[in-house]
């Protein structure tokens, strides 16, 4: 039957978008029942079956938009993960802005470039970087929860690594060989896991997967050279840090824009 063909295609497309969710089969069964109920109703009204199928699918909405809305709600997890999954765009924007602020503050708090370094500026700079790490970790948790539908062990591990990077940044922000690679690990891990859910654009995901290991390596090399040669590596560290902040901020904005746009497109539409 032609109608079954179209509906199966739709379910396959939707299934790809919710691939990593643990409640995937239940979601697809629920949608299948809906679409077949709609077709049956239209057929009972005398509509021929290919038309009924097409109409049922049009009324349901594009797989991309429906998946984006459905993945806003985790199937399992606590209130915190529900909050993070639903407010992902806002959290991403907050994290991106904090990274940019952190770069500016670090000029004063970590280097002598524009003004003489002071302990006060250093403490402020460390705190801003730590906040940026926490916000980024929250976004990573939100992305994981949306992809899998629950707060699973891997997500908790990623969150812990993110928190560790924040603590390391707060205590030893100048020592980028520690906190920056930790954050990079959390980001890369999430990127690999969330690849299938298309949270951001593919090009950005590739950029992250390439630049994060490079930046982590650069952070370690800069620190090792600084220690070995006893040269002041503050400016070099700042440059590596600014690179990280720029890449993260761009990707976070990309995630926010894409998720936001999807949500707007998929808002309740009412006829008449």
């Amino acid at each position, binding site marked *: 039957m032609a109608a079954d063909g179209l509906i199966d295609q739709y379910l396959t497309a939707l299934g790809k978008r919710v691939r990593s969710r643990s409640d995937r089969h*239940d979601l697809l069964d629920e949608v299948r029942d809906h679409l077949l109920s709609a077709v049956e109703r239209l057929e009972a009204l005398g509509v021929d079956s290919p038309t009924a199928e097409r109409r049922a699918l049009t009324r349901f909405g594009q797989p991309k938009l429906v998946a984006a*809305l*459905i993945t806003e709600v985790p199937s399992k997890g606590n209130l915190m993960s529900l909050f993070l999954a639903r407010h992902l765009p806002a959290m991403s924007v907050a994290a991106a802005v904090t990274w940019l602020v952190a770069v500016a503050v670090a000029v004063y708090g970590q280097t002598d470039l524009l003004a003489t370094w002071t302990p006060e500026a250093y403490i402020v700079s460390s705190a801003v970087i730590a906040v940026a790490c926490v916000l980024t970790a929250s976004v990573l948790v939100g992305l994981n929860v949306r992809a899998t539908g629950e707060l699973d062990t891997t997500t908790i591990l990623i969150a812990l690594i993110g928190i560790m990077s924040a603590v390391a940044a707060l205590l030893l922000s100048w020592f980028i060989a520690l906190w920056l690679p930790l954050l990079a690990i959390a980001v890369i891990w999430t990127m690999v896991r969330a690849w299938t859910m298309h949270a951001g654009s593919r090009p950005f995901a590739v950029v992250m997967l390439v630049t994060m290991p490079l930046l982590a390596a650069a952070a370690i090399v800069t620190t090792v050279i600084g220690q070995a040669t006893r040269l002041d590596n503050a400016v070099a560290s700042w440059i590596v840090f600014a690179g990280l902040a720029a890449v993260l901020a761009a990707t976070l904005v990309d995630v926010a824009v894409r998720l936001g746009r999807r949500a707007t497109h*998929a808002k309740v539409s009412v006829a008449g």
Partner: protein
Amino acid sequence: MNAESLKGHLDLLVLAVTSAGPIHGYGVIERLRERSQGSFDLAEGTVYPVLHRLERAGLLEHEWSEASGRRRKLYRLTPAGQARLVEQRAGWREFVDAVESVLRRNPWPQTA
């Protein structure tokens, strides 16, 4: 009917519709359409995030059944959902009454 204005009341409408007994997502949409004489005609996929969110909040619960040879997910109100419905319904009545009484004092067309 403005989409945004409906969106704000969708939780209340879905709770009201599910209070009549176990119902599947398609049934929720049909009942909304029928009871509103066609005014509330939803993009159908959007009802599922609402149902899932209300369930996560403990206001709905579900069970699976078999219908026409396929699995069907049926939702119904929990006691907490029932309480929320009573509360939101009262809030809505109050709001409508208040708007009504404001409108009555400014009969239209107004003569300046």
